[in-house]
């Protein structure tokens, strides 16, 4: 069972502002979906290894050589706000 309080907690972890009028619907959705995925608890998985990737890949290493990349100006040109060659964000430290 997922409570409204759980949903508010998850929203805070996920950095999503959750208006009061969305809380009830989302709580119901998440309760339904989590209820559905709970069917996995029927399975005996004691000796089963988890799969994080379908294709067995080892570390993909390349030579440590500097290659051309985006310039500072190009990268900043996409930013909502920029100043003095940096991304600008709201004041964090007084």
């Amino acid at each position: 069972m997922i409570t409204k309080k759980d949903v508010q907690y998850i929203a805070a972890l996920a950095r999503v502002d959750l208006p009061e009028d969305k809380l009830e619907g989302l709580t119901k959705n998440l309760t339904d979906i989590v209820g559905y995925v709970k069917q996995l608890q029927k399975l005996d998985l004691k000796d089963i290894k988890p799969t994080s990737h379908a294709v067995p890949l080892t570390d993909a290493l390349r030579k440590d050589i500097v290659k051309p990349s985006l310039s500072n100006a190009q990268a900043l040109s996409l930013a909502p706000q920029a100043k003095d060659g940096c991304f600008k964000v709201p004041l964090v430290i007084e």
Partner: protein
Amino acid sequence: MKLHSLTAHQIIDLYREKKTSPQEVFKDVLSRINALDSRVHAYARLYRDAPTSCCHKTAVGVVSTQGNYPIPIAIKDNMCTQGEEITCSSRILKGFYSPYDAHVVKKIKQSGGMILGFANMDEFAFGSSTENSCYGPTYNPWDLSRVPGGSSGGSAASVAADEAIWALGSDTGGSIRQPACFCGIVGLKPTYGRVSRYGLVAFASSLDQIGPLTKDVTDSALLMNIIAGYDERDSTSVNEPVPDYTKALVNDIHGIKVGVPQEAFGQGLDPQVRKAIEATMNQLKKLGANVKKISLPHTPYAVAAYYIVATAEASSNLARFDGVRYGWRQSPTDVRKNALIDMYEETRAKGFGDEAKRRIMLGTYVLSSGYYDAYYLRGQKVRTLIKQDLDNAFKDYDVILTPTAPTTAFKIGEKTFDPLSMYLSDIYTIPANLAGIPAISIPCGFSAQGMPIGMQLMAKAFDEEMLLRVAFTYEQNTEWHTKKPNL
């Protein structure tokens, strides 16, 4: 001659015979878009710099027509294309003009491909209906009151409506195959690692794969020849030789072993789809294949495992959309926590749609302290079991046949308020993503309502050639792929 109604290989034949030019083909497809897209809404945006105005979007551009395949193509709105706005059909990426080309886009340009525009999709590929787009839904060309499937619904609709000759989509749980099925075309999800994901906006990195949506199987092979291959910029790209996929287009399946899992005929399967699949099994037998019922006992758990694994990866991948480095920012109206966190929270609250928020939050939940073992780890273990089921089956069988989707295309709005029932429309397609194997959807019938029905074939990893061979043989001996919607 209606050039837009042709396949890519038919157009290439005309080029060889000097009966048409890339410019003429491009112009013809463009006028088709102008005539139809206000009704179908397959495109989120058209390519920017070119003269022709379009009914609902601004302008259209032509890319170089030098190369072997100057074919007009639709690109899903999640593949970076230099200088173009790429948004994943999300408000949060409005204003993001990509500074580089995705690997597949580069390959398309090098082959002479002419990019028509960027196909509408479910926001960040979260959905099975293309209703979750900040641009509004795409409509199914066979019946405009129905969904085209998703998340590559715009790509599928553009090809089915002849608003593109072929298209690229991406598939995390069925997002190429299910819309191909709903729109009566061919959709191929390649083996994980076969096509570079460099420049594809990530949804679930261990499942995502780019692939072709085409009018027939031959075009699927041709487009695979263009996009498949190793790319060092995607560390999961696999360095295996790429065959000439057109060599697999052999009209012969004598002795091919086809397994049909009994689990595919369970609850939720539309009787009309079941009938079409049973007819397909008989047809394949007549063509010389050895068709047998098999069991994949863990596949009924695939949807549950997938919605843990995929949302966990998505919640992590989508953490980067925070209004700082690119895309859209919502400046907070008042201070609640602190100015920076308020900005993150409001940007994400207003930038993401409802389904994106649901998935981010579900993923956050299954990864959160106290639930990791109960959900995420369990999901990954079930993934192992599903992969083992399939590995075992491929010891005895060349391909596995299932329906692509349990129903034909549903009505717009029908599943909007029931996310779980929407998720279940991917029940047959998800196992291939979890196991990383290739799978194709091809048309195999129509419902009484005139909606296309699709069948799915799966093969072992890197055996796209087997899929193409069986699909090609079936296609050459049936007529379904020649049918067109009445628009």
